[in-house]
């Protein structure tokens, strides 16, 4: 196996049941439907797509927080879903999660010190004094001061809270961090601070990021490779130059053209999609995008395109490519 691969995601399926347990007609939301990709060591893999397309679900399933309906997540050669409880707990140390909403991801009733102590407590790492040292160290790394330790989350600004979230994720020296829209809730001026911090930390600790966002500019800025999701499917992956400059999938094209641009002198043409995103509970047949696709053909409405390597390292799932 390729040494540079940290995580292999293979045919992952994660369905949520929607009707009550007593009901006869069970319905499913196919939040993640047959998704495969690799994460390479030290890279930042961006995951973009519209709200509800399954980005967060994918991220969480990769972490093993959900039990998938099918598929494997192979982390350093081990399928995490076949691990025993104890081994899984060990594995947890290696992968962490940073959330979108910095307020919601911190328990409002705990001080920052408590929150940062939690990972050590759960995994029984070090003595009290060692932990204290480590916590101080963490605070340093994310650019917070020691006096923040005794505060409660609501006494801190959004950017600071997000830093605490990052510190917590870093506590156990993970290899992989899933960043679920880590800057979407932050103000523009703070967003830049956090993005820089994430970049610095990656360099320093050789971290691998799975970076989820719907802000394509941010993804463009921070990611080496990008995956575009639509209704639970990965429709295009490739390194960021490929995706932004040589877009293949019509949905990805539309997405990228929709980015508002800040250059008033160079207005550009947009690909306007018609209609709304269909519900994942009831996805269209064939290519899931065919209902909104400006380039659709008859084939699209019944045959489902597979993800194929169109250019080296650049995959797309479209009949037209």
């Amino acid at each position, binding site marked *: 196996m390729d040494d540079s691969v940290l995580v292999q995601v293979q045919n992952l399926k994660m369905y949520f049941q929607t009707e009550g347990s007593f009901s006869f007609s069970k319905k499913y939301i196919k939040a993640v439907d047959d998704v495969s990709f690799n994460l390479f060591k030290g890279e930042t893999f961006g995951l973009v797509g519209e709200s509800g397309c399954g980005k967060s679900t994918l991220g969480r399933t990769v972490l093993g927080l959900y039990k998938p309906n099918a598929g494997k997540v192979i982390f350093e050669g081990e399928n995490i879903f076949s691990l025993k409880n104890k081994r899984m707990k060990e594995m947890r140390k290696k992968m962490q999660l940073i959330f979108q909403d910095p307020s919601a991801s911190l328990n409002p009733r705990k001080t920052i010190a408590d929150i940062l102590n939690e990972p050590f407590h759960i995994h029984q790492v070090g003595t009290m004094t060692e932990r204290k040292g480590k916590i101080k160290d963490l605070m340093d790394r994310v650019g917070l001061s020691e006096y923040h330790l005794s505060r409660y989350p609501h006494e801190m*600004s959004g950017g600071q809270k997000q830093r605490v979230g990052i510190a917590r994720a870093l506590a156990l020296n993970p290899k992989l961090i899933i960043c679920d829209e880590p800057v979407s809730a932050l103000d523009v001026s703070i967003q830049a601070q956090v993005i820089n911090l994430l970049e610095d930390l990656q360099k320093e600790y050789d971290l691998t990021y799975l970076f989820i966002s719907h802000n394509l500019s941010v993804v463009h800025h921070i990611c080496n490779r990008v995956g575009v999701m639509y209704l639970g499917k990965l429709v295009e992956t490739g390194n960021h130059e490929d995706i932004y400059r040589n877009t293949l999938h019509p949905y990805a094209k539309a997405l990228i053209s929709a980015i508002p641009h800040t250059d008033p002198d160079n207005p550009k043409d947009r690909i306007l999609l*018609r209609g709304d995103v269909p519900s994942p509970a009831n996805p269209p047949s064939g290519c899931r995008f065919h209902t909104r696709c400006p380039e659709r053909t008859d084939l699209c409405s019944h045959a489902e395109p597979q993800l194929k390597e169109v250019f080296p390292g650049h995959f797309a799932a479209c009949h037209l490519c």
Partner: protein
Amino acid sequence: MSDDLLDKDLLRISNLNVQFRTSEGVFKAVRDVSISIRSGETLGIVGESGSGKSVTALSIMNLIPNPPGEIKGDIFFNGQNLREMSPEEVRKVRGNEISMIFQEPMTSLNPIHTCGKQIMEPLLLHKGFTKHEAKARSLELLKMVGIPLPEQRFKEYPHQLSGGMRQRIMIAMALACRPKLLLADEPTTALDVTIQAQILELMKNLRNEIDSAIIMITHDLGIITEMCHSVAVMYAGQVVESGPLKELIREPLHPYTEGLLRSIPTITKEKQRLYTIDGTVPSPFNMPPGCSFQPRCKYSNPICSEQTPDLIHVSEERAVRCWRHAENIGIGNRSVLHG
């Protein structure tokens, strides 16, 4: 400012102050805001969360709840001071000559009335339409904002529609009476990227069609760039800089504007370390003395922390609230500014 200039302005706000009495004390959400807009023009207001953008817009509509809110200052609309009109007169202007689109399409529609009924409401109220006329006009509006199957949507309830669709209903409602001024308070923030693009496109088309003035509130500079003629940048309740879009983007005068522009990652920019503005927005209860931006400003001078700068017109259309520019054009003396 000369009188004829005043006349050209459809809306002119001068020295708007809005404060809220809260349990923690009096809190000034908007401080000395003065902006103006002419017919057919689009003004963008940008700024961080809590900088007072929405409050400014709501003040124009006189929708600030009182108590706890309190508005001071003048708002001239079509030459008339809205602040001096009776509530009944203001009400007649609202939804008729000035209308507003809100940020939250999910909650801004009444869940128990059909969309059609809600669009018809201002028509029946302000234009004296009969039910029949109003319905015809509503259907027309629905078509205009690009809603497929308008007849059917007319009878549906808001929860049956998607977010983008609801936002269109909001827009149709706001446009119903062909307002002279449209306030759009973050009309796309809650929407998905592709839907956002649809709505922005729609608004652009409508602007050309109805030729009314639009105030576009957002914290996304990209949207401003795309939509507006001129921009006002707000920070901590104050307008710190305003001017025509292109000039402002190319040559920001205020350090905050500059920081803002440089800290946003774009796909056109090459991949490099992002510029950051250190620190955070000050708490409204704990404003620094002098210039509000001074604690985060890399050009900070001693005077910045002593005296609050005024909004200085550096050219006919551009103004900035910064001591650096006060000095640049040679007026360091407060009294001169008031002349």
